[in-house]
């Protein structure tokens, strides 16, 4: 170990570093620069430096409520997507031939449909005189139409629909690579199906789950389009407040402060996930 360190040549940019440079340059211009400007805006009041934006975002009951709502939206969407997506990812990974193609299409086709089209579709289904009410009424499940559109239930359903593929894909890619003989080996050692799942399959699929959860949560907590289309002003998320501050109120400091808080949440999740990934990837023992 130390011997190789002694004889190792001085570090020079190798091929890999060169390969990643274009991407880094691109991100620097379109991401890092605006980000710095954003941070700058968040601490610049009308009369120079001020933390007024943060004071308002973190001190005002209304904005706190918005943040809690966003977190709740993120958590429920992520939980729902995990509940539906985990078994779906397994089905997808284990399916063969046509079954796999059809399952793939079912799960990923929604990604290709514009959110506008989708919300229009949800409207048709969920309206007071929509398909769902019509069906439930005719089946005798309800006596009069239920209000579904513009309810939180509809919002969560819509969010899960939109973000499900982001949960399924990382879990699927991990499960697909999993050696199916491992649960078999566990079975021959006397492990019940439940023991096999909790001690072999689940731990081995965790890297996919962590990736799926962090992606889905980051996207859902900062969602803008889906909640606006499905709820309008009835359910304000952090992104919607930001948009309002920037576009309607022209209150750049407020918008930038909110954006920074949202960014902090997202970074926490992503860094936490990366750390977990690394821990999961390191085999136990020495």
């Amino acid at each position, binding site marked *: 170990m130390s011997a190789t360190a002694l004889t190792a040549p001085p570090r020079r940019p190798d091929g890999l570093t060169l390969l990643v440079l274009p991407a880094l340059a691109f991100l620097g211009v379109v991401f890092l620069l605006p980000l710095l400007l954003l941070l700058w805006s968040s601490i610049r009041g009308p009369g120079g430096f001020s933390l007024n934006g943060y004071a308002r975002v973190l001190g005002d009951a209304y904005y706190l409520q918005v943040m809690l709502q966003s977190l709740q939206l993120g958590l429920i969407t992520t939980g729902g997507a995990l509940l539906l997506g985990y078994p779906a990812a397994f089905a997808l990974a284990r399916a063969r031939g046509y079954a796999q193609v059809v399952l793939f299409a079912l799960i990923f086709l929604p990604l290709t449909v514009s959110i506008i089209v989708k919300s229009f579709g949800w409207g048709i289904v969920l309206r007071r005189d929509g398909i769902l009410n019509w069906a439930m009424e005719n089946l005798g499940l309800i006596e009069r139409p239920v209000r579904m559109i513009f309810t939180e239930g509809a919002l969560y359903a819509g969010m899960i629909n939109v973000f499900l593929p982001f949960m399924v894909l990382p879990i699927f890619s991990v499960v697909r690579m999993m050696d199916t003989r491992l649960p078999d*080996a*566990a079975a021959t*050692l*006397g*492990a019940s199906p439940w023991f*096999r799942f909790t001690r*072999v399959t689940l731990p081995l699929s965790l890297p996919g789950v962590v990736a799926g959860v962090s992606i889905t949560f980051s996207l859902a907590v900062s969602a803008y389009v889906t909640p606006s289309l499905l709820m309008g002003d009835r359910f304000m998320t952090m992104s919607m407040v930001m948009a309002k501050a920037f576009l309607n109120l022209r209150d750049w400091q407020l918008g930038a402060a909110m954006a920074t808080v949202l960014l902090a949440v997202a970074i926490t999740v992503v860094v936490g996930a990366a750390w977990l990934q690394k821990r999961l990837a390191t*085999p136990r023992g*020495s």
Partner: protein
Amino acid sequence: MRDGGVSVGVGAAGHLAVSGATKRFGAALVLDDLSIAVAKGEFVSLLGPSGCGKTTLLRCVAGLLRPDAGRILVGGADITTLPAHRRNVGVVFQNYALFPHLTVAENIGFGLRAQGVAKREAAPRIAEALRLVRMEAHADKAITALSGGQQQRVAVARALVVRPSLLLLDEPFSALDRKLRETMQVELKQLLREVGITAIFVTHDQEEALVVSDRIAVMNAGRIEQLADPAALYGRPSSLYVLDFVGQSTRLSGRVVETASNEIAIDTALGRIWAPGSFLRGSPVIVAVRPEAVTLGSAQDGAANHITARVAEISFLGSRTQLHLDLVEPDRGVVELPRLPDGIAPGASVPLSFRVADAMVFPAP
């Protein structure tokens, strides 16, 4: 006559008895009405070419696959429909299938935990298993930090620690280099004897099968061609398939021209050969003789068969030398001599002789 023939003493003394196992994958018939019986404490090899259904048979016995038809009994109990985790049949998988997220000791202890064995009892059993495979020093290592041979040992220990009634090993040495392989073969044989377990061992390497097993089952296209001890399998193969699969031989096609009591004479490309057996006069047959049963010269006592053949090639193998005979397909000939006498070179004609009892006759395919 051939006590080395297919023995399917099903339901009899067999500790493991598979009877009439049939398995199809789509149109492919992978197990074809297969039967085999293995006695308690016996070490049986399943030998066969790639794709003949060895792994499929093991998976059926382990309960990882349900045969379409047939029954599987262990210790007299019918386990055909029992799920794998209730069978207590241990498996050492091809490439081991060790749990990558667990340490060596945790891998070995997995079965004990799964079966709810208390920690107090499990710890000494894990230690004992580690000692048995000489891995005490590596208990807390990650699986990925082990060499191939060490992984193989862990896989064996993991399977044995739960005291299975039967151990199945699917090509446990296929990932090891030749040298290590030979060491591990002897080691495994000793270990399994020490434990006294009944074991079935899959391989497509005939030398490995000859080295490690009490009996060898030669498989062909989903069936057992012959189940016999190594000497019987080599000396009295029940079919051309087994003859060719295990060891080398000189094979001459010919026709039966004379029949006496228990002996027949066959006319071949190399002349008339006498062999034991009873075939109708005129039957097309193949007569075969193992390389070491043939001697140079015509003076051997009791060697009633004398032929002369041209040498095509000579291979020096260290402790012995092989002469490949110049014959026209499908005939072929190989003779093994302890030492090569002077004056024999490719192209030379040599007199050869062998005993009638060493000649084997099979109906021509």
